[in-house]
């Protein structure tokens, strides 16, 4: 335990004082968390730590390997799992595999460090069109951080949160760890938080915003599909088309899928990644046409909800890349439950007229009742808006005159 952590521990126990006279339940009922006494969301990150769920599992004996016990309740400290040999620097344990996506979900200009960990000796199974089949016990690890200067990848980095998506036997469970102000440790944080962040933007101008750390329920608001009456939790980005690209680490560029096959953590993938689908990079014209890049961007940013099985299935708008019917992906489609989100415009997409398209209105807004995605976007992603505008402008046809 670092000196900082040692100093923190008694404070946590004091904060953990509570009045949970619990009943009728097993040890996992979270009654300790009910006693979570921390009140101030933004008064200080350290104050927001959930009551300690201390077990031996979370204080593992010295060693090198990942110490993740699927059957134990979540640990209070991210470091307990040893996913990183250097957490603050985001240097992963050698069992933990970094990955990148061709086009990521926009998250308020946060930098993301993504990793997966598979139970020792196990592999995930390739799928050409769906999410890879990851074994029970797998953990997806994603850290959100802010570079001091977006123009300089080597500038100082402020870690905000690390999210885990854990494959339990019956579901994927989201856990959120909030990095402390000293950047020495991340603590389990289930109720969400608001963290002020600032950075120098790509245009050299200072930016700031209230970064919103999701509560753990919100994880499944996106990571869920509804099939035959059942809600099934699922990863999103672990798909061939998103992952089929060169790895961002190491000296020589090497394709992620090919590398993982060689490492034995991925089975069933084509020997040559050129035979696997590949999503375009939204801002790289060499990787796809405007239509392909725009549809690809909508897919990764919107289709976790806007599909036939996602939470926004009720809207009738399907932004999955495979949807071939223009009216299903918004062309001349009247909104269903948009309310203020319509912006007074009549259709989701009006070919040729981005400024009459509800889709643009919602991407350009930061108001909570208007913006899309609904959550975890406090600012506008200008770079993708240019692409969307170009795409809609070039779409053929019209929606006809109002009757």
């Amino acid at each position, binding site marked *: 335990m670092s000196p900082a952590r040692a100093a923190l521990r008694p404070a946590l*126990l004091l*904060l*953990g*004082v*509570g*009045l*949970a*006279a*619990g*009943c*009728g339940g097993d*040890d996992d*009922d*979270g*009654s*300790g*968390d*009910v*006693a*979570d*006494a*921390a*009140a*101030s969301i*933004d*008064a200080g990150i350290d104050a927001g730590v959930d009551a*300690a769920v*201390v077990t031996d599992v979370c204080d593992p004996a010295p060693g090198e390997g990942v110490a993740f016990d699927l059957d134990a309740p979540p640990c209070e400290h991210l470091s307990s799992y040893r996913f990183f040999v250097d957490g603050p620097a985001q240097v992963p344990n050698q069992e933990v595999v970094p990955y990148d996506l061709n086009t990521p979900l926009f998250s308020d200009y946060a930098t993301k460090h993504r990793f997966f960990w598979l139970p020792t000796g196990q592999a995930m199974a390739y799928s050409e069109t769906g999410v890879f089949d990851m074994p029970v016990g797998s953990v997806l690890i994603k850290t959100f951080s802010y570079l001091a200067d977006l123009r300089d990848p080597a500038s100082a980095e402020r870690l905000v949160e690390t999210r885990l998506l854990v494959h339990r036997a019956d579901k994927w469970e989201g856990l959120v760890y909030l990095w402390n102000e000293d950047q020495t440790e991340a603590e389990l944080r*289930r*109720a*969400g938080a*608001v963290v002020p962040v600032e950075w120098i933007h790509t245009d050299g101008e200072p930016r700031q915003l*209230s970064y*919103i750390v999701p*509560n753990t*329920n*919100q994880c*499944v608001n996106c990571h869920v599909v509804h099939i035959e009456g059942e809600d099934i939790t699922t990863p999103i980005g672990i798909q061939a088309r998103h992952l089929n690209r060169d790895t961002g680490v190491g000296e020589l560029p090497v394709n992620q899928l090919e590398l993982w096959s060689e490492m034995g953590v991925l089975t069933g993938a084509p020997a040559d990644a050129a035979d696997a689908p590949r999503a375009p990079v939204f801002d790289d014209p060499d990787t796809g046409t405007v239509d392909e890049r725009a549809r690809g961007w909508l897919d990764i940013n919107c289709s976790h909800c806007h599909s*036939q099985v996602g*939470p926004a299935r*009720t809207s*009738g708008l399907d932004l999955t890349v495979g949807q071939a019917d223009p009216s299903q992906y918004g062309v*001349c*489609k*009247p*909104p*269903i*439950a948009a*309310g*203020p*989100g*319509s*912006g*007074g415009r*009549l259709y989701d997409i009006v070919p040729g007229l981005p400024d009459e398209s*509800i889709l643009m209105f919602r991407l350009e807004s930061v108001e*909570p*009742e208007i913006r899309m995605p*609904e*959550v975890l976007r406090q600012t506008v992603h200008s770079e993708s808006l240019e692409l969307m505008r170009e795409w809609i402008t070039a779409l053929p046809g019209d929606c006809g005159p109002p009757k």
Partner: protein
Amino acid sequence: MRSSLALSLSFALVLSPLVSACGGDDDDDDSTVDDTGDDPGDDVADDDGGSDACGDIEGRCIELSPADDGGAGGDQEALQTAFIDALPGDVILLHAGTYEFTLGLSLDVDQVTLRGEGEAETVLSFLGQIEGAQGILITADDFTAEDFAIEDTAGDGLKVEGGARIVFRGVRAEWTGEQAEDNGAYGIYPVQCTDILIEESIVRGASDAGIYVGQSERAVVRNSTVENNVAGIEIENTYDADVYGNTATANTGGILVFNLPDLQVESGGRTRVYDNDIFENNGENFAPAGNTVAQVPPGTGFVALSAHQVEVFGNTFTDNMSFQVGIISYYLTPFPLEDDTYDPYSDTLYFHDNVFVGGGDMPSGTLGAVVRGALDTNLGVDAPETIPDISFDHILNPEQVDEKTGELLPDFNICLQDNGDADFVSLDAGAEVPFAGINLDATPFDCAHDPLPAVELDGVPL
């Protein structure tokens, strides 16, 4: 309750919910609970099984009181944590007071009751909400909301998506400021749910529908009050709904039964609307353009849009200044139609034993002006002074038309009986020259359908 208040005062910023003991074993993990402290509320929770307000429950009762922290996030933390930690059977009891939230809340645990101490006493305020398209999102079954208010959410009020056995009782959802198009769309908003009961609730200020039941099966909306919304109550793409005993006033439109295209649940039917008091729904339409309800003329009592199997009886329609009752097809809206599977026509409607008072005297909106003009142009001196009580666009499903009469076959007809001295107009809006055959003769519609059965909810007692 007193203990709980004392607790939050004594801790100032620190808010600890009380968890009252109840049935079940006691082997919960005490390792993190310090019950040797000197806090005055510390040993209260487990002596008496919680407040009376918890009721006689099997699960736990989690009691919360407003945080005394000047809105610094204590309420947010406490209630969201209670939602995350909830176990099936829990009651989360919100003691009287105003709770402040800046982020949307969400609940994903089945069989939870969120209960206040009255819609006037327990207020969940979302004024200043910066995150979340609704105040509270429920993605769970067997959820009950009762006796609290939810105010000034950025978007929708309380949304339940994909839940079974959902109850709202004594809930108020309200936007307390001016009627404005940036008010949330829906106040009470179950969608793709089954077995819904909404009763004794109040919604004011929604920029779409106050109470909205969409793409659902089996719903009862009763004894509630909707006012100052664009639509008071809207039943959309839903099968088997009973809407009765409600008061709808000062909305743009009082009660709407709609079926819309391009939705997963493609249609709806078997809706009974009865014993409602629907008066002076003459409010300005403040819905943003693009939304279907933005087409509703101010002064509308009831509208059936592309509706099938609807029985409307025992209602009182008073002084709705444009259309006391409108029966229309989707073709009367300005929207294009691309959905081949969608039935855009209204059919098989039965209006009987309703009372009509006044109304139709100040037709408003595009449709109001068009219909007033059509009456005057085509009927001249015979045109009625007010828009007739029941206006039917007479755009008929060709597959349901009796070729001999040119009217709907008996099984599909619009039937009107025993509506006092209500007058009627068939607009012939679908004619080649629209309104050419407009007429006031209700004789072809003097018929009856079999009454629809009362809706029974599976697993929710009525």
